[in-house]
């Protein structure tokens, strides 16, 4: 099967900068051209996502945003209905990198506020983003900056800011961690002591969770002289972040992590060139994440064959991608928490990363328990011929056929095309064609919803969803 270069590349871009694309979406982006599509993705406008008032009419728990299941589903609704997928994808990227989890907070809304901050600032200046992160209430509780006092420092946030959020281990000393931590003393929450106790003593909350907000306490801030990465001054947190942001190691870290999330799990020699270019953009643009992503999406590496299918889809991509393709859950559905819980079954619960290190991505997503969950969820979504997205695939197959008749090659290739296009190995393709031949040629003429002809398309889509290639983005 020949896939036109443009179409294949656009589908690749939308798997990375989005959650994959239906044929309608793909055509819309193709009409803009590659450069136009990249700009639209990088500059989110109105996301047209499912409106809150509609969601709240159906889901009390998504109005309160108190518990983890409802809050995760709330974010999933946003992902499955947004028309600005890179905005959500970038938020997911930062959520995995600045991994903050529900377990310690008991305050789901504070996590969703953090995700909102990622939407707002996640493609702007990395320096500004780190300042916002350092003032983010969920982060302040998660990494104990609430316990970081002028009289006695708590290094948890200071350490992870350098190790996991910016420069990476080996680029600073233990003394730098202490000095960094001193600079963030007094960066806390309003009514911090009480909030801290509430977070540790989770029990019934008859009036709901109490909103958290950032509070700077000058009297608790250590204003003394500090020496950080060779520079000396009476640094406050913003000064420390300004020093972090100008480090080569920070540029390397941010570029590499963006590359691994948006381009390839493994960094090859060729991929290294794209990272170098992103680092240059980091400095030339004043640390702008949007510009780094633009450099990546326009790099030769990103457009090369090597980058295709070079990432294992994470569970969020599996679940959200399948739902967007099937066009299911376009309206609030009771029991939606059980749908979003599938991500957790596959190893990635939204708002509950296992540790501050986030999830181990790439091939670590794959184990036999998780693979069964991945295949079963997507196979079930895409084989449901009642779903609007699947109906649209059936209609397109019929429209593209000779008088409604598809031979086994046409059925297999047509499904691969409309679900991606997805390129598969010759070995995989021959199994798909053999499967398509089970009941001979398919006749879609005068098909009726749910009849055998339609169901045969559903069966074919189920098997395509179960291929090894479908596991990759």
């Amino acid at each position: 099967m020949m896939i036109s270069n443009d179409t294949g590349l656009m589908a690749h871009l939308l798997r990375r900068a989005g959650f994959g694309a239906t044929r309608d979406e793909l055509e819309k982006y193709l009409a803009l051209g590659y450069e136009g599509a990249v700009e639209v993705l990088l500059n989110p406008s109105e996301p047209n996502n499912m409106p809150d008032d509609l969601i709240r009419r159906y889901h009390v728990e998504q109005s309160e945003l108190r518990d983890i299941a409802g809050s995760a589903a709330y974010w999933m609704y946003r992902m499955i209905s947004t028309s600005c997928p890179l905005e959500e994808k970038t938020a997911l990227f930062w959520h995995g990198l600045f991994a903050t989890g529900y377990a310690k907070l008991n305050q789901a809304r504070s996590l969703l506020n953090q995700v909102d901050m990622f939407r707002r600032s996640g493609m702007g200046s990395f320096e500004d983003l780190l300042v916002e992160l350092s003032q983010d209430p969920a982060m302040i509780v998660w990494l104990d900056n609430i316990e970081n006092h002028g009289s006695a420092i708590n290094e948890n946030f200071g350490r992870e800011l350098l190790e996991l959020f910016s420069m990476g281990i080996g680029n600073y000393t233990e003394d730098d961690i202490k000095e960094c931590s001193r600079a963030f003393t007094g960066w806390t929450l309003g009514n911090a002591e009480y909030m801290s106790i509430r977070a540790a003593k989770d029990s019934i909350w008859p009036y709901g969770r109490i909103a958290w907000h950032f509070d700077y306490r000058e009297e608790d801030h250590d204003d003394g002289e500090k020496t950080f990465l060779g520079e000396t001054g009476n640094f406050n947190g913003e000064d420390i972040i300004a020093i972090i942001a100008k480090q080569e190691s920070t540029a390397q870290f941010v570029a590499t992590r963006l590359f691994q999330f948006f381009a390839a799990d493994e960094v090859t020699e060729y991929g290294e060139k794209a990272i170098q270019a992103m680092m240059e953009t980091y400095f030339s643009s004043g640390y702008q994440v949007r510009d780094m992503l633009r450099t990546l999406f326009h790099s030769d590496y990103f457009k090369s064959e090597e980058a295709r299918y070079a990432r294992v889809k994470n569970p969020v991509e599996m679940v959200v991608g399948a739902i967007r393709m099937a066009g299911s859950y376009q309206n609030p559905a009771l029991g939606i928490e059980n749908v979003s819980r599938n991500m957790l079954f596959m190893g990635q619960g939204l708002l509950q990363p296992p540790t501050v290190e986030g999830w181990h991505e790439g091939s670590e997503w794959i184990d036999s328990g998780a693979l069964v969950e991945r295949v079963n969820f997507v196979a079930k979504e895409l084989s449901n011929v009642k779903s609007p997205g699947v109906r649209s695939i059936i209609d397109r197959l019929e429209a593209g056929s000779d008088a409604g008749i598809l031979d086994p090659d046409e059925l297999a290739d047509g499904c691969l095309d409309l679900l991606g296009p997805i390129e598969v190995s010759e070995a995989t393709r021959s199994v798909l064609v053999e499967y398509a031949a089970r009941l001979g040629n398919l006749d879609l003429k005068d098909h009726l919803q749910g009849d055998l002809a339609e169901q045969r398309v559903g069966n074919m889509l189920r098997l395509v969803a179960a291929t090894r290639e479908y596991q990759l983005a």
Partner: protein
Amino acid sequence: MTTNKREKSLIVMQLSGGNDYLNTIVPYAEGKYYDSRTTVNIPQDRVIPINDQLGFNPSMGPIKALWDEGKVAVINGIGYQNPNRSHFRSMDIWHTAEPDTIGKEGWLGRAIRDIDPLGENVLTGINFGRGLPRALACPGVSVASVGDLATYGLFPDVQDEELRMFTLEAFSKMYGGAAGRDPVMDLLGQTGKDALQGADILRTAPGMYSSTVEYAPDALAQNVKSISQVFHANLGAKVLYTQHGPFDTHSGELLSHAKLWNEVAGAIGSLMEDLKEHGTEDDATILVFSEFGRRIKDNGSGSDHGSGGGAFLIGGAVNGGLYGEYPSLAEAEQIEGDLRSNNDFRSVYTNILEDWMGLDAAPIVNGQFEKFDVFKS
């Protein structure tokens, strides 16, 4: 790889939501208990006495019967320093054996890795229920999660059995093929084959099992029945895990707690009867635990999150009895209105790992803990 040599297995029953230990093992001779629990208490005349101080909740009849046979170890007052009353965090702590920092690996995941370092048996650890409790999660360790044994495997929603077999065959061909093309494709291929093999083997389990024991229809009893089927099929399953709940009894506790314990005690009673019938009573030990206990004072209709719970080890290989001191209800001993645990939960883990599973416990539980001596030597 499967083995026909029967070896010792651990069956874990997690009581999710925070079991009210005060109303489970009831300090019925303590005036302070009735003073604090003015409504949510078990009256003296309804307690099943263990001794003149403590007694079982009246819903625990089948456990009392096993107690009388010397097969129940009641471990009082276990927990950890600086108790955390968050369900998620506290459960994480129990799962990762790491109270101070956020742990990365589950204690049973580590145990499975030690038992089967090459991952030769995809069924060494099995969770009965969807998803994977963190206790079983460990990088490189494959654990099957069985929602329903009868339909476990790929494409459970395909009703037409012929179509399903045809689809599975195609799946098997797609995940076979020559290795060495690409490491990720190879990993996917191997994992797909493992998943199929695991499902094929697991599906044989119910057919290899017969028993006169009738399990109750509730979800826990049905999961425990699946555990028994898999355990008796000799598939090399060493850790079989399930959970039940919700034990988060903030309101209407007396009714809901009784129902839950009826189910837990019933499932344990049926399982032990089943093991006896198969002559395997000495080959499995059941661990029952919860993430925390509940507040000493009730709230009028239920009880709020507390600390200082307890655990149970049950089986033919267990030296029945009371272990660990029951936490004092004296006000001076309380932590902000909660019970103070006397014993670290990792003591129990150490006992199980070393004396039941034959593993080196310290690297799994992150340190040395004085252990109980619950198992018969």
